[in-house]
């Protein structure tokens, strides 16, 4: 074993961890907000329902890799986009990757939250309505808190997948953990060691992430713990 090489590789790869985490958290933050909006829209009006279904169908049914390509190479073909205020963002691979990752996770997230919404007991919503709640207040205070608690285990799964999905951002020149590992391999041809190092980094990130999700679940669900009083 060439420990010197492993340590050197690890150091280079660790430099990509901040970008990997940034891509994950920024796109998850945008995607989660969008997912809640899509799920609520789908549950509300009929025309919206079809729009959301179409969105989810397309974004879930095509590879994320293609979506990143389409946004990075495709969107600049339109003069309207190049002339719009968005171009300073969309010309950068970073924001293209964020956009693709956000739109993609929003589609999965919308389905997960829809499942959560369906699991909200009818009686809880009815008790809220009969107390005079409706619309935004009803969702904010009763329905979403109950739905998100239901959806959290499945959403945790999606977060873990998102960490791994950021590796696709390397295809549009972003030097996150995977991007750096490809660069090292093309210089050294030592694929095994480099990929093992990269894989172990993803494992550690996801280990910490799943712990955090479990903590969040426990914190949000005091009513599922055994009674203390």
């Amino acid at each position: 074993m060439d420990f010197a090489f492993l340590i050197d590789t690890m150091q280079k790869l660790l430099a990509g961890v901040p970008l990997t985490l940034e891509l994950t958290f920024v796109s998850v933050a945008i995607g989660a907000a969008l997912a809640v909006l899509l799920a609520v829209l789908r549950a509300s009006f009929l025309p919206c329902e079809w729009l959301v279904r179409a969105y989810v169908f397309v974004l879930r049914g095509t590879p994320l890799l293609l979506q990143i390509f389409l946004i990075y190479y495709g969107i600049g073909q339109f003069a309207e986009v190049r002339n719009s205020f968005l171009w300073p963002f969309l010309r950068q691979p970073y924001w293209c990757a964020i956009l693709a990752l956000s739109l993609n996770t929003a589609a999965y997230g919308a389905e997960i939250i829809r499942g959560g919404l369906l699991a909200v007991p009818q009686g809880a919503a009815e008790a809220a309505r009969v107390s005079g709640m409706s619309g935004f207040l009803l969702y904010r205070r009763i329905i979403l808190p109950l739905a998100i608690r239901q959806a959290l285990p499945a959403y945790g799964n999606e977060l873990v997948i998102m960490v791994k999905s950021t590796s696709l951002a390397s295809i549009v020149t972003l030097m996150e953990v995977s991007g750096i590992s490809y660069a090292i391999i093309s210089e050294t041809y030592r694929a095994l060691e480099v990929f093992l190092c990269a894989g172990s980094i993803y494992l550690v990130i996801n280990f910490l992430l799943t712990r955090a999700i479990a903590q969040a679940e426990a914190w949000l669900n005091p009513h599922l713990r055994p009674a203390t009083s």
Partner: protein
Amino acid sequence: MTSAITVRDLRKSFGQNEVLKGVSVDAREGEVISIIGASGSGKSTLLRCIPMLEVPDAGEVAIGGETIRMRSRRGHPEPADIHQVNRIRSSLGFVFQSFNLWAHMTVLQNVIEAPVHVQKRPRGECIAEAEAILEKVGMAEKRDAYPAHLSGGQQQRAAIARALAMRPRALLFDEPTSALDPELVGEVLRVIRGLAEEGRTMLIVTHEMAFAADVSTRTIFLHAGRIEEEGPPAQVFINPRTDRCRAFVTRHLNR
């Protein structure tokens, strides 16, 4: 005396099944009306139509003299103004058969939720009032417990506290003890009886005949979507005028 709740010629069908066939009830301030009848007679639907949990196909509901405005949309009636409905709903207290407490909140949070967020009353005032109400229903020491950690009787008493915290002009009970183990029925009935003795206006749908006979000022017997018999409990339970009511009451009182 003024009318707290007025229901005029209410009709409601579920598909082909006409559940209410023109029911009128006028509950004056301070009246305790028990509504009895076989399952499927329409008593729960009648109660649920009052705060528009079910939207009647025809007829009128008025709370404290204010009629809930209706409109027709694609041939189906619906309340015309959700703000009016919300205001009227928050002036009533509704107690469900299956409690329907909010699982993610403690008992106290359940009780202050609507006063704080719907009625926009100061939080401190709501908490103080909630504590007094919880004391009254015997749930003071459970104020920080979650519904999942309570017995059915405790959950229902918490749900009654939640309804009382709205400072309701009338209380509606939809079979409040039907989901309870027999040994827990008593504690809930005691609380409801206490409220009746305070002179609160109440409509109680129930299968507890002895309780209904004892606590109410008027009893309504529903059969197949119509009021078959109505009067003071002494008449309805002891000396019914209709055969159907007599048969129903005898069957249930002798259980």
